[in-house]
């Protein structure tokens, strides 16, 4: 019997930056193995939403659940620290600016979390790193340092680093926005491969074409609210809302 509980569930998410309400009560859920793309203009709150799933942003209201466990539950400081660390180990996060650790080699970047957080032996962690690098097509860079890699390679290593923790979901925060155009495809290819393996993914992106190709569902956000959501075919071809239409028009023409 398959588990029908959603993998990620967000209920009534609200967030303020000072007086500015950047998330105005967002509800959405992601089923097991589902791929959701979140699109929208900059400042729409899509990155904030993604970051609050990982609790890098603390919500001012609402709930985030991962696989039946509430992420942002109320606990004493110490207990919450323990709780959030274990929850985060089950989520892979990929950042716009890669955030590889510059003082560690590629192998160490990938191995450090399994070693220090799961107590994996050094040799095993290195083998795991190699396996993950193989997956993203960078096995030959295992002993390189991040500064020697291209942006696309850095991002693929960052994906490998997240995958090494065997996460239940992968969160992508504009993973290709900081890349030169010719390097975007290699990263997209890795993400498509993950999609083929039925990884549950939430992808915040500027790339409509990629979203249409890979996502099971697309969410269009503007001004801190979900304007419209649906299957990519429907949302991109026949948007219902005027707001969605004008956004897509600008994007597809420009």
């Amino acid at each position: 019997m398959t588990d029908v509980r959603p993998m990620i569930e967000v209920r009534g998410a609200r967030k303020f930056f000072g007086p500015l309400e950047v998330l105005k009560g967002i509800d959405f859920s992601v089923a097991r193995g589902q791929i959701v793309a979140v699109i929208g203009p900059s400042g729409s709150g899509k990155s904030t939403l993604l970051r609050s799933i990982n609790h890098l942003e603390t919500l001012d209201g609402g709930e985030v659940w991962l696989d039946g466990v509430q992420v942002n539950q109320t606990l004493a400081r110490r207990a919450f620290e323990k709780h959030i660390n274990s929850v985060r180990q089950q989520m892979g996060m990929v950042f716009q600016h890669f955030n590889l650790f510059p003082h560690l080699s590629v192998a160490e970047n990938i191995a450090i979390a399994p070693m220090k957080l799961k107590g994996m032996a050094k040799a095993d962690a290195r083998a795991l790193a190699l396996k993950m690098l193989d997956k993203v097509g960078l096995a030959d860079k295992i002993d390189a340092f991040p500064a020697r890699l291209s942006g696309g390679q850095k991002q693929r290593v960052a994906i490998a680093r997240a995958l090494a923790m065997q996460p239940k979901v992968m969160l992508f925060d504009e993973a290709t926005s900081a890349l030169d155009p010719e390097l975007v495809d290699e990263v997209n290819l890795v993400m498509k491969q993950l999609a083929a393996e039925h990884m549950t993914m939430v992808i915040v992106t500027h790339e409509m074409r990629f979203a249409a190709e890979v996502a099971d569902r697309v969410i269009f956000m503007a001004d801190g609210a979900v304007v419209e959501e649906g299957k990519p075919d429907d949302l991109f071809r026949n948007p219902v809302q005027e707001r969605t239409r004008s956004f897509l028009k600008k994007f597809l023409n420009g």
Partner: protein
Amino acid sequence: MQGLDFSIVPEYLPLIGKGLWWTVVISVVSALFSIVAGMGFALIVLYASPLVRYPVRLFMWLFMGTPLLLQLFLIYFGLVQIGIDIPALWSGIIGLSLHFAVYNADIFRAGIASLDKGQTEAARSLGFGAWQTRFYIVVPQALRNTVPAVGNMMIALLKESSIVSMIGIAELVHSAQLVISETYRPFEFYLTAAALYYVLNLILEAVLRGIERKVELSR
């Protein structure tokens, strides 16, 4: 005018050499302590509770605003009067270490503050706790990024280690003084000591350049 006569210098070189050895030992030990303690102070100033943070900040402020010689006098001649008797050698090492730890702490604090916020976020997103993130990600990077600045402090430390001669530690300057009290040839022997410091300084600079290059290579 007495004039100069360097021909008597070689005779006393073994004694001077002993002083030189102690200068190296004191400098190396104090340098290591000052780096470890400096990072400790930096982490306290940045992350510890106010109860610990403010006393440490007060201490740093006091030590930055006063001369090393005065601090050495306090530790060696002062503490003994309230029953804390620290031998001269350790007084010197403690004084040098604390004096430079305070400067290193300032460098480390700035180094940590200038790290990209994404580094902490990436570590936290993998499930590292706050102190784990500092230990594995923040501190190593801050140490690497501050090699040039801390290196300059260590160059200053080597030279200022000469000041511990004033509390009677038999390092280079002190052994030169011993020889001078016998030979009445201050210029010759102070110049010899200065030359030896100059050579030590060159060696230290070469070592630091080596470290900088190594750090640079793994970027």
